[in-house]
């Protein structure tokens, strides 16, 4: 074996680029956040312009802060720390640049398309299918660059931060691809391949784990690298970090169904989501304590060092958010908090406190090192910290108060639970308006703090010379014994025994008679054999694990298996449930062509962001909105529209509640009908024409996806849509509202009036519900 001493210059240019992009997009994303929060207080701030309405800007806010701000910040942190932890320059400058510019192009494309109303209609997954493909390609570029760098590393061991990065790359790829599977109807529009309950489950499997594996695991990796660097002492417990990693990876992926508690989601999935959410308390708090205790002996520096301040507060907010999350996943707590501002408060505790403060700490730590100049003003950074902290606390206290208040009011009943105490939804909305205003102030303060950061970093780097870090390493030829191929990974005692035990447990659970008994016995024998084998070959088991940890490819494969199993077990059984022959006592009637056009307008305008279509199995929900929603009532919905927030009332049974004229007036000027409403006006629906020509492709795609449409010709579709539109226009004229039948408002009214209509069916293998 020959050793050679070489000097490696890191590619810090890419880190600087991502850092600056993160600051820029952070300002944009937070500014849009303050604007949409203002729109909820002052409806005039929607300016009667389609591309400035809440329903279109809210996805811009969420996508900007998640994928543009945290995404760029994450890439900066991952690239900086990985190069140093593996003592190797990034494998390819070309791939690094392609990653950076490709990601920025995606962000710009999102910033253009979302205000135009080009959306898939799924939260945090709104981007249209051509951009989805671009995201997948650029993510593969990131993965290739990252794993190629690991393959060329000069440090054999993989620090725990790298494990978190691997889990992020693998899991986000899996989640993103599955949740974005769509069939295009045109260059700018598609329908998700999943529908109804299956779409709901896939969406929140993705949505929850976007939080877990985009906003949490990479930032935990960053925490495990940058907190020790800033505190100038090693992580408190490396043991705890290993437990933190494996527990989180195994548990997180299962918790998605907690977003659908008390809904039509099958009970076993709700139980699964709740159980695993509660289990998350342990690893999350283990990680938080590990981060905080790393500051042991350095607490006095928090008084003066803004970097440590941000890190300490950021990790604390991680602990708070991960305490609150499982709490909200308890079914009874969820019955109060779901669909209210409490959830918004919970999310922002994580994003503003954890992501935002960890990002700020990292930026303040990195800038002086990447430009070789001390921070322009630590005092300004300290001011940023206090303004930001006050902003977060105002925001959170406002949202907690607002959410719990509205939840209590909406659920309150009189006369032994038979009558709603606040039957008018607007009563609850008017009560929480002061809190909604306090949110604007809190968010505004946080934005001001972040602008101080932008100014401080700008003054730090203005005129400074950018420098790339270097390191001298002894390049060793890796011993052949440390390599672990795919065969050695899989053909090992731990993996074989695990597979056998799982297999025989399945035989025990699903077999009948003797097979069932044999499965149980075989599983027990395997466990005993595994223990015996371990006792005899403990060293070999240990060696296998140690070699696994220094071989990134097998490690990545096992991480993928860990997260994929959780997803598959949740999603595959719902494929059998979400079929017309296997619903409860009701089945959705497919939308007519005009109703489908109206539904697409509903999705385009982002109505689902404020209105749910899911009446939960809770007494107050049923008293307020009507009979609880059945599994079959959304079976043909691509995408599902169950929603996640009730800024306005649920619309699942809106059809037929009011005459056409009511909807006409309400969409033109909501306050003429509902005094105190904060809904935007939609005047353009009265001047834009419905795109009937697009319906042929849309209906064909939906038929391919299993919606029972006949093989209509374009002429038949056109006739059906026109006839229904003329009928609605005639009805409106009779109520003294004049509108041409081809206007969008007519299609939207057709859709709204259909909501809640169903055909009764006799459930498969069971008596119908009464």
């Amino acid at each position, binding site marked *: 074996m020959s050793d050679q001493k070489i000097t490696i210059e890191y590619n810090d240019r890419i880190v600087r680029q991502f850092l600056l992009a993160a600051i820029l997009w952070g300002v944009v994303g937070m500014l849009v956040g303050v604007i949409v929060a203002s729109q909820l207080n002052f409806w005039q701030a929607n300016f009667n312009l389609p591309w400035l309405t809440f329903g279109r800007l809210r996805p811009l806010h969420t996508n900007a802060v998640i994928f543009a701000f945290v995404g760029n910040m994450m890439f900066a942190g991952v690239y900086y720390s990985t190069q140093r932890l593996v003592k190797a320059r990034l494998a390819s400058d070309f791939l690094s640049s392609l990653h950076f510019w490709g990601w920025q192009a995606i962000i710009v494309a999102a910033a253009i398309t979302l205000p135009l109303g080009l959306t898939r209609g799924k939260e945090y997954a709104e981007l249209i299918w051509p951009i989805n493909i671009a995201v997948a390609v650029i993510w593969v570029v990131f993965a290739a660059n990252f794993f190629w760098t690991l393959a060329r590393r000069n440090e054999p061991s993989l620090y725990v931060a790298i494990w978190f990065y691997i889990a992020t790359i693998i899991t986000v790829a899996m989640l993103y691809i599955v949740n974005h599977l769509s069939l295009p109807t045109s260059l700018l529009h598609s329908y998700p391949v999943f529908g109804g309950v299956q779409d709901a489950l896939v969406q929140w499997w993705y949505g929850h784990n976007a939080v877990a594996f985009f906003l949490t695991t990479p930032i935990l990796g960053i925490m495990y690298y940058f907190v020790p660097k800033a505190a100038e002492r090693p992580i408190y417990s490396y043991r705890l970090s290993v437990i933190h990693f494996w527990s989180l990876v*195994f548990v997180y992926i299962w918790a998605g169904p907690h977003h659908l508690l008390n809904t039509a989601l099958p009970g076993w999935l709700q139980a699964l989501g709740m159980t695993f959410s509660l289990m998350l308390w342990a690893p999350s708090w283990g990680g938080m304590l590990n981060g905080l205790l790393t500051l042991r002996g350095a607490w006095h520096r928090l008084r003066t060092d803004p970097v440590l301040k941000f890190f300490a507060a950021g990790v604390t907010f991680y602990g708070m958010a991960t305490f609150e999350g499982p709490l909200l996943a308890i079914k009874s707590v969820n019955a109060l908090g779901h669909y209210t501002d409490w959830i918004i408060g919970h999310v922002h505790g994580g994003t503003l406190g954890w992501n935002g403060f960890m990002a700020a700490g990292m930026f303040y730590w990195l800038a002086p090192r990447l430009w070789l100049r001390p921070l322009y003003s630590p005092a300004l950074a300290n001011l940023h910290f206090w303004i930001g902290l006050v902003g977060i606390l105002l925001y959170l206290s406002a949202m907690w108060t607002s959410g719990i208040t509205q939840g209590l009011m909406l659920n309150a009943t009189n006369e032994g639970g038979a009558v709603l105490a606040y039957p008018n939804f607007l009563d609850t909305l008017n009560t929480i308006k002061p809190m909604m205003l306090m949110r604007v102030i809190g968010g505004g303060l946080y934005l001001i703090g972040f602008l101080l950061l932008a100014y401080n970093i700008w003054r730090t780097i203005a005129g400074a010379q950018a420098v790339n870090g270097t390191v001298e390493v002894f390049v060793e030829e890796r011993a052949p014994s440390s390599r672990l191929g795919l065969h050695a990974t899989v053909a090992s005692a731990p993996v074989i025994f695990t597979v056998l035990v799982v297999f025989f447990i399945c035989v025990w659970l699903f077999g009948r008679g003797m097979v069932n008994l044999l499965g149980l016995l075989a599983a027990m024998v395997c466990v005993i054999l595994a223990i015996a084998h371990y006792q005899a070959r403990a060293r070999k088991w240990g060696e296998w694990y140690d070699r696994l940890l220094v071989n990134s490819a097998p490690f990545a494969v096992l991480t993928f298996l860990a997260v994929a199993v959780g997803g598959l077990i949740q999603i595959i*059984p719902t494929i059998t449930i979400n079929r017309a022959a296997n619903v409860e006592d009701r089945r959705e009637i497919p939308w007519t062509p005009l109703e489908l056009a109206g539904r697409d307008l509903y999705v385009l305008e982002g109505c689902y962001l404020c209105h749910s279509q899911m009446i939960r199995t809770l007494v107050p929900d049923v008293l307020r909105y009507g009979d609880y929603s059945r599994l079959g009532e959304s079976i043909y919905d691509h995408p599902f529209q169950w929603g996640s927030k009730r800024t306005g009332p649920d619309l699942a049974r809106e059809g037929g509640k009011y005459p056409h004229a009511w909807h006409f007036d309400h969409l033109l000027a909501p306050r003429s009908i509902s005094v105190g409403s904060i809904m935007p006006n939609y005047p353009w629906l009265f001047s834009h024409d419905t795109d009937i020509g697009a319906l042929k492709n849309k209906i064909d795609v939906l038929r391919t996806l299993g919606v029972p449409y006949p093989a209509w010709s374009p002429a038949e579709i056109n006739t059906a849509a026109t006839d229904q539109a003329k009928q609605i226009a005639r009805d409106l004229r009779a109520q003294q509202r004049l509108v041409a039948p081809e206007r969008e408002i007519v299609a939207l009214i057709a859709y709204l009036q259909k909501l809640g209509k169903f055909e009764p069916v006799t459930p498969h293998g069971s008596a119908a519900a009464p």
Partner: protein
Amino acid sequence: MFQRVIYENWQLVFPIVAFGAAVAICCAVVWRVVHMPRGQLDRLARMPLDDDPPISDRHE
């Protein structure tokens, strides 16, 4: 008022099995890390501190 028709009673085993599997894996990981050699742990824990010197050393 409510009558939810449950077709998938047998699937209630999934949360139980998944819970058991996750607990078993967590226990295995805990057991493993408790038996990791102290020297290896210290070396791994110090990895972030092995690279470039703190900025203050370069400027002051």
